[in-house]
C-alpha cells in the first residue's frame, strides 16, 4: 500500500503521479522488479533508431519513386507505385514481416531470427555496431517495403497535379533544363504537403513499431508496452504510454517547426498574426 502511495487521497495520488511522470520516475516494474525508468532508458534508443531510419528511408525512396512515376505517366514504374500504394494499405504488416523472417531468417539464415543484439554481444565498438545494424536490417527493410508505397502514391498524385501547373509550363518554356524544373520549381511545391503527410503518418508509425518490435523481438519501447499490457504490469505500461505519447508529440512539434522552414508563406502569416 505505502510503496505505491495507495494510502493517500486520490488527488494527492494524482499529483504524485504527474510529478513522478514529469521527472521520469515511473516506479518499479511488477514483472522484473527493476525501476521502469532504467528499463526504458535502454530501450528508447532502439525504438528511435528503428523508427527514424525506416521513416527516413521509406520517405526518400517513396518520394523519388513518386516523382519518377509522375514524370513518366503510364509507365511500368507508375503501375508499380499504384499497386505498391494499394498493397501497403491492405497488407497486414506483421504478416509481411513474419514472411520475411520465415524466408530470410529461418529458411535462408542470413538474418537473425530475434533480438536487437547477439547473445553474448560481440566485443569492440565497430563489431558491436555492425551486429546492431545486422539485427536491425530486416525490421527496417520490412518497414521500408511496407511504407514506401503509400509515400510514392501520395507524392505521385501531388506531383501530377504540380507538373500540370502554369509555372512549370512557364519554366519549361524558358528553356530551363528538366532537372532544374523538377528540383527548383516542382520539388519546392512538394515539400510542405510532404511534411503534412509525415505529420499525419506519425501515429500510425508508432503503432507499427509495437507490431514490428513484437514480431522481431526487438529490445524496444513497443515490445515493452506489449509485455506490460499482457502481464498487467501497470507502472511499465503507463510509462511506455507516456513515452510513446511524448515521442509522438515531439515529432509532431519537430515537423511543425520544419513547416516554417520549407514554406516561407507560413512564417510570414504567423509573423503577421502576432
Amino acid at each position, binding site marked *: 500500500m505505502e510503496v505505491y502511495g495507495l494510502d493517500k487521497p486520490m488527488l494527492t495520488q494524482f499529483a504524485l503521479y504527474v510529478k513522478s511522470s514529469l521527472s521520469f520516475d515511473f516506479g518499479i516494474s511488477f514483472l522484473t522488479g527493476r525501476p521502469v525508468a532504467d528499463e526504458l532508458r535502454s530501450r528508447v534508443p532502439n525504438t528511435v533508431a528503428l523508427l527514424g531510419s525506416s521513416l527516413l528511408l521509406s520517405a526518400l525512396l517513396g518520394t523519388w519513386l513518386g516523382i519518377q512515376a509522375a514524370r513518366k505517366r503510364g509507365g511500368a514504374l507508375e503501375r508499380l507505385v*499504384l*499497386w505498391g*500504394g*494499394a*498493397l501497403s*494499405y*491492405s*497488407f*497486414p*504488416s*506483421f*504478416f*509481411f514481416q*513474419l*514472411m520475411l*523472417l*520465415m524466408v530470410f531468417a*529461418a529458411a535462408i539464415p542470413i538474418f537473425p*531470427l530475434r533480438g536487437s543484439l547477439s547473445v553474448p554481444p560481440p566485443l569492440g565498438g565497430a563489431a558491436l555496431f555492425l551486429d546492431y545494424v545486422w539485427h536491425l536490417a530486416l525490421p527496417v527493410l520490412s518497414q521500408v517495403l511496407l511504407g514506401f508505397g503509400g509515400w510514392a*502514391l501520395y507524392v505521385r498524385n501531388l506531383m501530377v497535379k504540380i507538373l500540370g501547373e502554369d509555372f512549370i509550363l512557364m519554366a519549361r518554356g524558358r528553356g530551363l533544363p528538366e532537372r532544374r524544373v523538377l528540383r527548383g520549381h516542382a520539388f519546392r511545391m512538394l515539400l510542405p504537403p510532404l511534411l503534412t503527410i509525415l505529420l*499525419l503518418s*506519425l*501515429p*500510425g508509425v*508508432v*503503432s*507499427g513499431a*509495437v*507490431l514490428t518490435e*513484437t*514480431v522481431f523481438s526487438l529490445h524496444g519501447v513497443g515490445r515493452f*508496452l*506489449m509485455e506490460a*499490457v*499482457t502481464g*498487467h504490469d501497470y507502472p511499465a*505500461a503507463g510509462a*511506455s*504510454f507516456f513515452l*510513446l*505519447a511524448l515521442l*509522438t508529440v515531439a515529432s*509532431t512539434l519537430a515537423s511543425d517547426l520544419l513547416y516554417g522552414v520549407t514554406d516561407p508563406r507560413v512564417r510570414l502569416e504567423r509573423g503577421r498574426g502576432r
Partner: protein
Amino acid sequence: MRRRTLTRRWSFWCLVLLAALALFGGRLFSAPPDAEVAAPFSKPFWLDRSLPPTVTADLTPDAPSAEIPWSWGAPSRFFVAADMVADAPGRTILWTKPGGRTVEIAPLKKGVERDGRDMAFKRALGLPPFADGAASLLDERGTYRLSVDGQGPWEGTVRLRLDGGRWGLFGTDQRGRDIAALFVAGIRVSLLVGIMATLIATALGTTVGLAAGYLGGWFDSAAMRLVDLLLSIPMLPILMALAAIWGKGLWQLVLILSIFSWMGTARTVRAMTLSLRDTAYIEDLRGIGAPTAYILRRHLLPETLPLLLATMTLGVPGAILSEAGLSFLGLSDPRVISWGRMLHEAQTFGTFTAGAWWMLLPPGLGIAVLCLAFLDMGKYLEERTDPRLRGGALS
C-alpha cells in the same frame, strides 16, 4: 476498355465468395473448427506424398466393418474409441491385417479407448514397453480391416483414427485443428468486425459531421478539435490498453475500433455539409420554416449517402487490419477463432520451431485479399459517385 460494371470486378466476386464461405463454409467440414482432427503440425495433403495421410473410419451397426488401404510407412498414432450407449457383451473390436491375421483390439464397451502409444495396450498386444504400437499394427502394405466381431446387439459408433503426417487442404496447427476449417471460421470474424466497426464509425462520423457542419459555432470547433486530437493519437497502443481494461470480447473490440475510426468520415461529411448549407434550396427550406432536424435528415443526409458508401467500403480494411493486429498481439478472446489469432498462434507455437509455414500463409493472405477486395470495391464505388476520379489506382 475499363471495366465499369460491378459484375466484372474481381473484387465483387471475391467478396461474394468470401461472404458465401462465411455463411455456409462451416458445412464443408464434418467436424467443428476447434475439434482436434489429426496430429499436430500435419502437412497439407498435397505437400509430401511420401508421408502417410490421416485416415478416419466410423463403424456403426449398419456398417460394422471398414477397409483401410494402406501403402505408406507406419502412422504416428493408432487410435480407436467407442462411443456407445451401453456395453455390448460378446462383441469385440477386431483388426485384420492384409495377410489375414487378426488382432483383438478391445472388447466393445462404453467409452473404451485404445491408443497405440499406451503401455497397457502394448502389453495386451504382447509388445515390449518401448515398441511402437502403431508400427506393429500397420507393419505391411495392403488392405486392413477394422470390424466389430461377435454376437449380440450394439448401438453407437466405433471410431478409428490413423494419424499420418498429412491432413486437408492447409494441414493442421499445433493442436491438430484443421487449418482450412479455422480459415473459413475466421472469415466470419474478420467480416463481422470490419463491417460492424465501420458501420458504427460511419454512423457516428456522419452524425458529428452533419451537426458540426450545419450548426457551426462552438459545437463545430469542439468536434473538430476532438477529431484533431484523436487523429494524432497512435491508435494501436490505445487499443491495446482498452482491450486489456475492457476485456477481450468481440463486441468490445468492435466498439473500441469504431471509437477510433470515425474521424475521417466526420471531416468529409462536415466539408460537404458546409458547402451545401448555403445553397439556395437549403436556404429556401429554412425560409419556409423547416425544422433543422428535418433538413438534416431529409435533405443533407441523402446528399452525403453516395459518398458515404464509398468511404465506408474504404474504411473496412482499416478495421480488419486493426482487429488482426490486436489479435496477433494476443489481445483477443482466445476462444474466438480469427485470422489474427491464427497468426498469433502461428508465431508463438509453430512457424519457426516446427517450420509449419502452412499455419502462416492462409490467414495472412486471407487478410490481404479481403482488404484488397474492399479497397477495390471502394475505389469502384468512389468512381461511380465521382466520375472525375476515374483512372486512379487499381482501375
